[in-house]
């Protein structure tokens, strides 16, 4: 009967249980390439400013004088262009998203040098 075409699928689904993941208890696995957020190993950074110039959304700020690299998390679109153009390859794409937030979030990374410690700046 053409009205009962869906029944086979429905019965199969009933026996199978939910296809969705019970989120807070079980987290979805990420893949190697999953684009979550931009990370930096600040010690390798030479503050050339290439990522700042190439970023399509102007989310990145590089300050050579203060040896600081910062990113506006909610402005970043995770395109990965900065990780490609970085000459020292110190930027990388991490698999996890950043925490949700209400306001703007600017993550600032400051390089430790001999003359300056992170607490001073």
């Amino acid at each position: 009967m053409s009205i009962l075409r869906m029944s086979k699928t429905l019965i199969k689904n009933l026996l199978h249980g939910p296809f969705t993941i019970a989120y807070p208890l079980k987290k979805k696995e990420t893949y190697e390439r999953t684009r979550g957020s931009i990370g930096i190993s600040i010690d390798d950074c030479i503050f050339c400013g290439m990522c700042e110039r190439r970023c399509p959304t102007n989310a990145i700020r590089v300050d050579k004088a203060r040896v600081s690299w910062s990113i506006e998390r909610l402005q970043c679109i995770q395109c990965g262009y900065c990780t490609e153009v970085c000459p020292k390859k110190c930027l990388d794409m991490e698999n996890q998203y950043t925490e949700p937030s209400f306001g703007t979030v600017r993550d600032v990374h400051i390089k430790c040098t001999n003359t300056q410690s992170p607490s001073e700046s």
Partner: protein
Amino acid sequence: MGNRTIVPFGPQHPVLPEPIHLDLVLEDETVVEAVPRIGYVHRGLEKLVEKRDFQQYTYVAERICGICSFMHGMGYCMSIESIMGAEIPDRAKFLRTIWAEFSRLHSHLMWLGLLADAFGFESLFMQSWKLREEVLDVFEETTGGRVIFSVCDIGGVRKDIKKETLEKILGVLDRMEKELTEIAGVFLNDSTVKLRTRGVGKLSKEAAFELGALGPMARASGIEMDMRTQGYAAYSQLDFKPIIDLEGDSYARTKVRLGEMFQAMDLIRQCIGKMPEGDIKVKITGSPKGEYFTRLEQPRGEVLYYVKANGTKFLDRVRVRTPTFANVPALLETLKNCSLADVPILILTIDPCISCTER
């Protein structure tokens, strides 16, 4: 002649998350005329080309639409490559074709779900979207993004697909094909579904041609028009024929889209079988100078890209003509003389993407 009433439809309507407004002129329960109005999600993406250089704009072009994002990026990159006279490697062409066909699969599955939702068949809607998840997982594994891929670049693609992943994709396709066959049977043969789609919103071949309908809308009315036959990307090396139907009603449009989904799976299999080894990108130096028109087939129909470059990093003009815009006149034609209850389904059968249309 009965009393005429005007019923506003949208911009917010449960059946369609996108903002299109229609003034429906009714005579009793029958629609006599529909007056469309768009302009609720204009973002000025074409103007943005003056502020972002031509390489950065690749990422902007992708974000014109959330569903056919890959093909927007591809259309833009193809235009720039043609202006600069760059020939991209064969492997990149095949990779682009694989992602383009997966996008078609994902777009049509989403559309099927929305259609089922429009006539109130919730479990069919869930079933279609469950299948779509598998496609999104393939996207995430191969590109890193589920909706916006950021893999298409001027001169090729940015990421390769490994051999093991390609084999895994073949497994996913086999599994999906089996499940899709089950759903397709419901869409095409279930009597309750047929009651809502068969004979509703007929568009004759002449009307479709005259009103400039595109994509599955035109093909369901019997016009054999598919830009993939031009042979861009790797399509010239693949074996396929545009799927057409002669009925021109909502049922025919569903049938054409279902056929295209099986065809997309077949094309992906062909691509994986014929994929050559080699580079995935050529280096592009300098800035483009000149202008170019690109036409390519998106899930919703033909998209037209016009790019004008002046030899600097910033382009003069980018113009996109999206398929939904071209399909709106055909939609208004099908709305005439339909009943008010059929309006949501008819609007859905053109597979509208208003965000693309307004950019």
